[in-house]
């Protein structure tokens, strides 16, 4: 934008909204720590090859079922593979599946919720009954069906989990949109001639977003858990690929003999899920408009 003398009009906001949100988030210690931990996890997932001390399937027959030590901080499994390396390399699988699954659910579910909530009437009825049916279907059965038709693999695992979560996003979005669509500013925008598309994208969705963002964070936790569960059942990641859920399943047989086989992948799942949940709670507080005006009002 050109800053010329005479017309000092800037169409840009004084402080961008997202920066304000980040600032508020930083003041919420639990959420801030969770966010940092998750960031660290993402970095681990990206640089897993460099970070892992060994390859995932480097078998050392001499060092089978070794308890945690200096050489193998998390111990080794029944084939002598380094557990730390497998946990590190499993991070990518878990997060990838989580993000993709939630991405699918977010995109489709939010779209459906937006249309149902905004247009109401028969569109609402039709779409939400469809969602109810999807919701009523046993999740594991649905996932098994998807995986049976399309075969296993992390992409299909994500698709299966994503489909299961579509109704959740549809419902959250619809509920939020129902409140926002009655707002006077939406009517005001319509009164100056804005199209439905414009109302939806510029006014309704941005204002309906906070609960969806919170739901995203919480669903990520569930998706990571779901991936682990499916892998545990043998439907997700296939051996010998490392995955937290799969490692948990494999370690199950040795639980009385070598607790570290199940313990470390279990902790990884626990921490990731906890962080996503805490971040969700923090976001819920920060995105609450009441809290925002109270805290941000002074910044003029």
């Amino acid at each position, binding site marked *: 934008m050109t800053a010329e003398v005479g017309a000092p009009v800037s169409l840009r906001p004084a402080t961008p909204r997202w920066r304000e949100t980040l600032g508020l988030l930083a003041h919420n210690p639990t959420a801030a720590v969770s966010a940092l931990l998750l960031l660290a996890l993402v970095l681990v997932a990206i640089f897993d090859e460099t970070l892992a001390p060994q390859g995932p399937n480097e078998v050392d027959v001499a060092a089978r079922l070794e308890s945690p030590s200096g050489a193998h901080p998390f111990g080794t499994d029944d084939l002598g593979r380094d557990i730390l390396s497998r946990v590190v390399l499993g991070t990518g699988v878990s997060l990838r599946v989580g993000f993709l699954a939630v991405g699918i659910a977010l995109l489709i579910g939010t779209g459906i919720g937006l249309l149902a909530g905004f247009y109401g009437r028969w569109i609402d009825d039709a779409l939400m009954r469809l969602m109810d049916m999807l919701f009523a279907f046993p999740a594991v059965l649905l996932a098994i069906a998807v995986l049976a038709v399309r075969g296993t693999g992390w992409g299909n695992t994500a698709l299966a989990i994503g489909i299961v979560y579509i109704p959740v996003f549809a419902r959250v979005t619809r509920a939020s949109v129902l409140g926002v669509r009655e707002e006077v500013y939406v009517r005001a925008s319509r009164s100056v001639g804005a199209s439905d598309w414009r109302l939806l994208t510029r006014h309704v969705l941005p204002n309906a977003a906070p609960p969806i963002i919170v739901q995203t964070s919480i669903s990520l936790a569930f998706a990571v858990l779901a991936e682990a569960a499916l892998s545990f059942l043998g439907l997700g990641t296939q051996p010998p690929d490392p995955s937290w859920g799969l490692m948990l399943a494999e370690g199950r047989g040795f639980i009385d003999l070598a607790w570290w086989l199940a313990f470390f992948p279990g902790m990884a799942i626990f921490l990731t899920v906890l962080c996503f949940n805490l971040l969700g709670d923090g976001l819920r507080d920060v995105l609450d408009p009441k809290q925002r005006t*109270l*805290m941000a*009002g*002074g910044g003029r």
Partner: protein
Amino acid sequence: MTAPVLEVEDLRVRLRTPRGPADVVNGLSYRVGAGETVAVVGESGSGKSVSVLALLGLLPAGIATVTGRALLQGEDLLTMAPERLRQVRGPGAGMVFQDPMTSLNPVLTIGRQIVEGIRAHGDVDKAAARRRAAELLGEVGLPDPVGALDRYPHELSGGMRQRVVIAIALSNSPALLVADEATTALDVTVQAQIIDLVEKLQAERGTGVVWITHDLGVVAGIADRVLVMYGGRCVEDGTVDDVLENPVHPYTRGLLGALPDLARPAVGGVVPDLATVPGVPPAPTDLPAGCVFWPRCPVRGDARCETEQPPLAVIGSADVRLPHRAATWCTDRTSGTESPAGGFR
């Protein structure tokens, strides 16, 4: 004059806010006699509502610091133990707020809510309390009072709900009735009914009334005495005739000038623009030094305006019992408001 029902002395309220301490009420003193109506007038943020919430102990304790004295029939409300305050709120002081739904429980019948109030403050059996409740609803002009006992708040119109709230407030014949913008949400015809009702009940029972409003028209009809608040202070008080007919403080003059007036006919067919008070009221976190009204005052000029808060000083009125007072350094009583021609931002 009889002993006052309520005597407020140097009431101060400071609220803790994220933006620092806010001095919402800064030294407010007034008294309400039996059967007397004192109107507290001011715009939003003037501290008028907070001042009564503070009296009745309805401000959140961790956030508000209240000092001063507030004697209700000789007992200080501000130092009272919480249990005693709860006892006093029924028979001592009744409250009516702007939105009747905030005072009514939506899931309980009207009858149950009134009966509860009566039984909480007196040893009455259920049947007697119910009879009394029906009587009260009749008194406040509800058609079919007995039938109304078994109805829920949402089944009544706004005006009827406000009558129910008044019935609850009056159920223990309080010495003091506090009405905070009680008729603001109502239509004028219903407002007229409610005001008539309060005046009638007041005459019968000798209740002292504190009527908080921004509507100077309502004040003219209901008040004996008026207290104009600005920036947490009383800037002018006196009898309703003194304050509304001969306002002295530039703010009071500004308020009156800003009112479109049905009784003030257009001159030569041309309706003049309304006078306005320029600017906006000060934030309680950031009150100006000197006179609170100084930054918006159209007649400022005295050297003390910027540095010294003018005291409430008696003006004119000969009657020492009903003094007309104003807090201003302004001595020019002829001009008061900015000419409407000047724009402002």
